[in-house]
C-alpha cells in the first residue's frame, strides 16, 4: 500500500489545480479579460446602445489634444506627488519618534493611526465643513491675519486643501510601514553612535536614514500609485471643481464612461493612466529587488 502511494502522486497533485481554479477563474474573468477589453474598447466608439465601431487610434489622437484630459492628468500628477512627498517625510518622522519607548506610547500611536480607519467619504464630508469659509480652519487662521480663505471654491486653493486632508488621513498608515522598517535597524548601531557622542538628529541622519532608505523609496512609490488612483475625496468634496481644478483622471474616466457613455474615449484614458501607473510599478519592482534582504 505505502509503495503504491508513489504511483498516485501525480494524480494527487492535480488537487492543487482544483484549489487554485476558482481564484484563477475570478482573476481571468474580472481582471484580465476586462483589461483586454479596455484595450479593445479604447480603439472603438461605443455608447452601450449600438455595437462598438472600430476607429483605430482616433480616441488616443483625440486625447493628445484634449485640454480637459491633459488638465486631469496634470492634476493627478500634482495630487500624487503633492500628497506623496510630504506624506513620506512626515510619516517617516512620526515613525522615528514612535520607534522609542516612552510613557503613553500606545495611546499616542492609536490617535495618530485613527484617521486611517475612517471612511474616505466621512473624512471628505467632515473636512468640507472644516474648510468652509466660516469653518474651523479659517477660525484657527484668523488670529494670524489669514483669510477667510475660500478653500474649496477657489481653483488655486482647492487642490492644496484636498492634499492637506489626504496627507492627514494617511500618516498613520505609512507610519506603521515605517515602524516595521525601523524595527530592522539594530539597536547596537544607536548605542555605538551615542557613545561616540552623536545627538538624536545626527543618529537619525547618519544611521536611521541610510538603513531604511529602501523602505522609504518603496513607500514613496506605493503611495504615488495610490495617489494616481485618487477618486473619493475629489468626487465627494468638489466633484472635480472649481473649474476642473481638482478633476483627477479617475473622476474624468468615471464621468466620460459612466455618465456620458463614451466608453471608447474613457477606455483610452484608462489605458493612458495604466501606462503611467505601470511605469511607476516597474520602477518600484526595481527598488524592491535592490532590497531583497529587507523583504525576503
Amino acid at each position, binding site marked *: 500500500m505505502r509503495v503504491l502511494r508513489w504511483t498516485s502522486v501525480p494524480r494527487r497533485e492535480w488537487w492543487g489545480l482544483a484549489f487554485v481554479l476558482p481564484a484563477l477563474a475570478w482573476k481571468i474573468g474580472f481582471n484580465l479579460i476586462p483589461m483586454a477589453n479596455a484595450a479593445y474598447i479604447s480603439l472603438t466608439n461605443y455608447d452601450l446602445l449600438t455595437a462598438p465601431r472600430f476607429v483605430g487610434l482616433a480616441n488616443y489622437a483625440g486625447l493628445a489634444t484634449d485640454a480637459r484630459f491633459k488638465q486631469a492628468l496634470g492634476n493627478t500628477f500634482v495630487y500624487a506627488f503633492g500628497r506623496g512627498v510630504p506624506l513620506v517625510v512626515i510619516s517617516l518622522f512620526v515613525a522615528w519618534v514612535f520607534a522609542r519607548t516612552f510613557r503613553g506610547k500606545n495611546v499616542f500611536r492609536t490617535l495618530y493611526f485613527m484617521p486611517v480607519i475612517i471612511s474616505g467619504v466621512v473624512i471628505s464630508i467632515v473636512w468640507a465643513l472644516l474648510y468652509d469659509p466660516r469653518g474651523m480652519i479659517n477660525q484657527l487662521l484668523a488670529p494670524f491675519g489669514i483669510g477667510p480663505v475660500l478653500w474649496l471654491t477657489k481653483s488655486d486653493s482647492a487642490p492644496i486643501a484636498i492634499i492637506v486632508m489626504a496627507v492627514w488621513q494617511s*500618516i498613520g498608515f505609512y507610519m506603521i510601514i515605517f515602524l516595521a522598517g525601523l524595527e530592522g535597524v539594530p539597536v547596537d548601531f544607536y548605542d555605538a553612535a551615542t557613545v561616540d557622542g552623536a545627538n538624536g538628529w545626527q543618529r537619525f541622519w547618519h544611521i536611521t536614514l541610510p538603513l531604511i532608505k529602501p523602505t522609504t523609496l518603496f513607500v514613496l512609490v506605493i503611495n504615488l500609485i495610490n495617489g494616481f488612483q485618487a477618486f473619493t475625496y475629489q468626487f465627494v468634496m468638489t466633484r472635480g471643481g472649481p473649474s476642473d481644478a481638482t478633476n483627477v483622471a479617475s473622476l474624468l474616466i468615471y464621468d466620460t464612461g459612466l455618465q456620458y457613455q463614451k466608453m471608447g474615449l474613457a477606455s483610452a484614458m484608462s489605458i493612458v493612466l495604466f501606462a503611467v501607473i505601470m511605469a511607476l510599478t516597474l520602477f518600484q519592482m526595481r527598488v524592491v529587488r535592490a532590497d531583497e534582504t529587507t523583504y525576503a
Partner: protein
Amino acid sequence: MRELALELTPTRRSAARVWWRRLGWACFYAGLSLGAVVMALPMVWMVTTSFKTESAVFAVPIQWVPSPFRPDNYVRAWGMANWGLYFFNSLFVATATTLLNVLFASAAGFGFAKYRFPFRGALFVLVLSTLMIPFQVIMVPLFIITRDLGWLNTYQGLIVPGAVTAFGTFMMRQFMLTIPDELMMAARIDGCGELGIFWRIMAPLARPAAAALAIFTFTGSWDSLLWPLIVTTKTGLRTLPLGLALFRSEYSTNYTAMMAASVWTTIPIVILFVLLQRHFVQGIVISGLKG
C-alpha cells in the same frame, strides 16, 4: 517627569544636565500632543457637531461642548434616508466579500503553496500580474461585463466582481509555505482526503493570516465608494458610503444631520478596530509589502 529609557546611565551627571533632559522630554511631549490634537480634532469636531443646533455649527468661538445639546439630531437624520437598509447592505456586501475572499484566496494559496501541478509557476504569475491592474483602469469594461451578466442593481453585482483578490492569494500562499508538509503527510496516512487536509489542517493553522486578510477585506469593502456608485442606481442597493455621499449632495446644508450620519457610519469600523487592533496593524504591514 520620568527618566529617559533609551539613555545610557552615566555615573555622574550635573544638575544642569538633568534639567536639560527634563526640558527635552517636556518639548517631546508637547510636540507629540500637538500632533495628536491635529489628528484627533476633525473627528472630535464631527462628534460634537452632530449634537449641535444648526446655527451653532459655525459659531465663533468653536463650541466644543454643544449647548443646547441636541441628541435628537440622530433621530431626525435617521428619518431622512433609509439608513437601516444602507447599514444592512454594507454589512451584507462586506461580509459576503470577506467570506469569498478568505475562502478562495486561502484555497488558491494552499494550492500554490503545497502542490506541484503543471504550469503552477505560470498560473501563479498570471494571478499576481493582476495586482498591477488598478481598478480605475478596468472599471469601464467591468461595468459592461456586469451589465451583460444582468447584475446591475443586484447584490451579486456589488459583491462578486471584486471579491477574490490576488493580494489575498499571495498573502495566504506565503503563510501556507511556512506550514510543514509533514502535517499533510501525517493526515494522509490517517486517511484524510485533500479537501479534509485543507479544511481541517491548513485552514485552522492559517488563521492568523486569514484574520488579517479578513479585516483588510472587510474594511476595504466597507469604505468602497466607486464600485457601488457604478453598479447601482436604485436607492435600495446603496451602501453606507454611497448613501452618505449622495445624502450630502441631497441635503448639502443640513450639517448636523450629515455629521450624525457620519458618526454612525464610522462607529462599526471603530468597534472593529478596538477589538482587533493587532490584526489591523499586521494587515497594513503585510499590505505595505504586497508590491
